[in-house]
């Protein structure tokens, strides 16, 4: 049974709901769908799972972009309804006929809907009965991408309640799958962390919601299944690049690190020639405003060139004529070349392939069916939509004002605790020191906690930083459990009135089970205010893997009812990547966490904020 079907405007006004279905939805699946899927550039996905007490819904949706309408169907997940996509598309078609922007009541649609639903159910039933494989899609929709989704639900057969009848189904589904290169595994899952569905307006508390269900992502990745839709035409499949994945760093021969790298134990003796830098190196770049001119005229010429390339085939006259007259409605095929070019461009900027793919899907979903404005080209329309999407993704969902948080903690007479996590050799300790330096400049008293009790030399390295910055450091050698060391450090900080505790942890590969377990323990035992993921700006496709697995492990190994995930990202080595800024996007997209700091050099002052505008500009250049 369908739970509910809603039609609403992109502005948020509900135009029609099915009164017949009536039953009130539990929790707020629609708002959650919008906030953590549609507004997170995931609208290219096939479905969305919503869990609240007493409810396990699957939601499916379709857009009418020209009219600015959204159609959402909600049903119980255990019922693999076969007809939902079909029904949605029919509802869309019928409703767009009678839609009038001035009208807000559509009671007359009740009857139409009843009819449509019966038709759709009947069709699904027929499909179920007919054992033979059907070649043609059921409905006569014009766009394959939409209609072909019909029946995919049947693909997830966990329960074979229907016995024989189901087999036919599956066969059909499989066949379709091969035909279209579709996969049925694409959907996001969501768990309401608070255990109740009421999420209205509580931006902060639902922040975890948006985190991509890494589970699914992983499955998707490992299977190598891609949602190809009509994109199928020879997208160059970049082989999974592993080159960016660092093996253990050889610390000695990294001359670039020389200035801040005290990893080498020999540095211990270097105390004499070490000078205190606390006030010497000047203002941390965190506080410097960066002025990026927001004019985009510069790119105009370039763009013309690009655009002309895209529709060079059509001849200048037709393209000019088209751009003056404004094209009818944008179809998937019109968007394809521009989207592909955009995807490739994103990938040359080191955006992980699957992320670039998903973004393009989402942009396509938001443009399909729209009217192209006069005097615009498809390529520039796509580009503008992508730019908006990128700004949305990179705009932090919550406040990233750490100093304010520090003050809040201080009012409660407790230190503000930051845990730095990440894989090996990304510069955790070095950037921890930069953050410490920045905090010091703002008259915040800082303490370091050396909880990397795994790698030899780690404690000494941190000690060296602490001495240079004249910051107290809490250390217990290498034998102890890092979770316990952190706990004691926080107690010590409470005692001596330090306002912030920066906890250094051992670098660990995301697949290292024992170490990930230890990290999870550290986090749950100490409940830090901020779990900061330190990642290299150099990583490409691996960014997704690292972050999603970290989050996944933290969630899986959680021992408490509230799941702690990564709250923020510190990107290191930003100075070495030139215009390949894609990692910032990949990481933010995968985790939903904002980039809070950017490490961009070798001195303590080289810590910046992420400038969203300039990143977006660079990505689209």
């Amino acid at each position: 049974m369908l739970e509910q079907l809603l039609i609403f405007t992109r502005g948020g006004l509900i135009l029609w709901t099915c009164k017949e279905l009536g039953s009130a939805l539990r929790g707020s699946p629609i708002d959650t769908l919008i906030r953590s899927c549609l507004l997170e550039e995931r609208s290219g996905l096939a479905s969305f799972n919503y869990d609240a007490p007493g409810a396990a819904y699957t939601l499916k949706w379709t857009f009418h972009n020209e009219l600015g309408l959204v159609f959402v169907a909600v049903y119980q997940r255990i019922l693999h309804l076969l007809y939902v996509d079909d029904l949605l598309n029919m509802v869309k078609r019928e409703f767009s006929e009678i839609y009038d922007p001035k009208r807000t009541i559509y009671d007359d649609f009740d009857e139409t809907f009843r009819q449509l639903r019966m038709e759709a159910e009947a069709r699904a039933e027929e499909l179920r009965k007919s054992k033979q494989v059907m070649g043609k899609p059921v409905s006569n929709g014009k766009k394959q991408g939409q209609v072909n989704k019909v029946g995919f639900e049947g693909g997830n057969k966990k329960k074979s309640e229907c016995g024989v009848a189901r087999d036919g189904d599956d066969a059909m589904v499989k066949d379709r799958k091969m035909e279209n290169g579709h996969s049925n595994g694409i959907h996001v899952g969501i768990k309401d962390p608070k255990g109740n569905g009421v999420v209205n307006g509580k931006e902060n508390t639902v922040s975890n919601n948006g985190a991509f269900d890494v589970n699914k992502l992983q499955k998707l990745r490992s299977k190598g299944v891609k949602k190809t839709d009509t994109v199928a035409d020879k997208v160059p499949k970049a082989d999974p690049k592993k080159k960016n994945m660092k093996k253990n760093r050889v610390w000695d021969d990294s001359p670039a690190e020389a200035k801040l790298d005290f990893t080498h134990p020999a540095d211990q003796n270097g105390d004499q020639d070490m000078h205190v830098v606390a006030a010497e190196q000047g203002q941390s770049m965190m506080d410097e405003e960066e002025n990026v001119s927001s004019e985009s005229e510069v790119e105009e010429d370039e763009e013309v060139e690009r655009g002309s390339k895209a529709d060079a085939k059509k001849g200048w006259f037709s393209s000019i004529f088209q751009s003056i007259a404004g094209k009818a409605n944008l179809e998937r095929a019109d968007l394809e070349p521009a989207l592909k070019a955009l995807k490739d461009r994103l990938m040359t900027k080191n955006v992980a392939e699957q992320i670039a793919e998903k973004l393009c899907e989402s942009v396509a979903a938001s443009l399909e069916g729209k009217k192209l404005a006069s005097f615009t080209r498809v390529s520039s329309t796509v580009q503008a939509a992508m730019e908006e999407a990128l700004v949305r993704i990179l705009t932090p969902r919550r406040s990233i004002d750490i100093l304010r948080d520090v003050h809040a903690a201080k009012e409660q007479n407790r230190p503000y605790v930051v845990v730095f996590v990440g894989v090996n050799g990304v510069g955790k300790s070095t950037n921890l020191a930069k953050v410490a330096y920045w905090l010091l400049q703002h008259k915040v008293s800082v303490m370091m906690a050396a909880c990397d009790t795994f790698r030899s030399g780690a404690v000494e390295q941190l000690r060296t930083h602490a001495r240079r910055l004249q910051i107290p450091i809490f250390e217990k050698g290498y034998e102890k459990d890092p979770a316990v060391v952190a706990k004691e450090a926080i107690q010590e900080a409470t005692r001596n009135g330090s306002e912030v505790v920066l906890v250094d942890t051992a670098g660990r590969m995301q697949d290292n089970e024992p170490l990930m377990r230890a990290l999870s323990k550290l986090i749950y035992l100490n409940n830090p205010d901020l779990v900061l993921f330190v990642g290299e700006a150099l990583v490409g496709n691996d960014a997704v893997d690292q972050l999603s697995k970290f989050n996944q492990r933290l969630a899986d190994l959680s021992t408490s009812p509230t799941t702690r995930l990564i709250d923020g990202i510190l990107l290191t080595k930003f100075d070495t990547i030139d215009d390949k800024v894609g990692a910032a996007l990949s990481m933010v997209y995968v985790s939903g966490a904002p980039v809070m700091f950017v490490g961009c050099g070798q001195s303590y002052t080289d810590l910046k904020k992420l400038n969203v505008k300039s990143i977006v500009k660079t990505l689209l250049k």
Partner: protein
Amino acid sequence: MEGMEQWKVQVENWTNQLNQLLGQLLEQVHQVPPAQLYVAIAVLVFTVVVLLSIPLFKRKKSNTIVLTGLSGGGKTVLFYQLRDGSYHQGTVTSMEPNEGTFILRSETTKKGKIKPVHLVDVPGHSRLRPKLEEFLPQAAGLVFVVDALDFLPNCRAVSEYLYDVLTNAYVVKKKIPVLILCNKTEKVTAHTKDFIRKQMEKEIDKLRQSRSVVSAADITNDFTLGVPGAAFTFSQCQNRVTVAEASGLTGDISQVEEFIREHVKP
């Protein structure tokens, strides 16, 4: 493609004809004495300038009122209450702004010509915040909607957003009046507007300290709020900041309407 070719030919014909016409025109112009020509040109220029400047004068007084605030505050409900006197079948989280130019519902019974209001409801979802900046340049007034029911858990988030709004370059420079609207007050558990005002002032006071040292590179917080050394109150703002109550659900929105009509004269 064939159609296109025909088109091309036709267009070429047209351009040829046009060229001929132009040539004739130029010849005629040469025959006219120059003095007359100058007068004619002067008259032409004058009319064009006058015609162009009429809308400029008209536009001087903006009629745009912008609704903003956190997601779930009740902006969209308010928008439709102001427009239609009903919130219809309810709302969901907005993904795009709602915009409309209309006479307020409560004024439709009044006689005489009334100036319509251009009302914009900007979504509150933090990912969509950059949208607000698009509408500020034309705003005659800003209604900052606060959920009075669910205020405490959101107090910090609300205040931070209001801080960003109040320090926005346009709001400061153009002294855009801001109405802090405590919504959902039909519920007995809703906080009073005085409580909300005080809590927000306190919160902004703290933000002032942390933000004055670190300003987000993207939000141009070029301006600092209030008087250094004194506790922050809204009365210290350059622009007028007032507080009011409303309930979008029950249609008790007279105070918003007053605010709107104060800044968009009927």
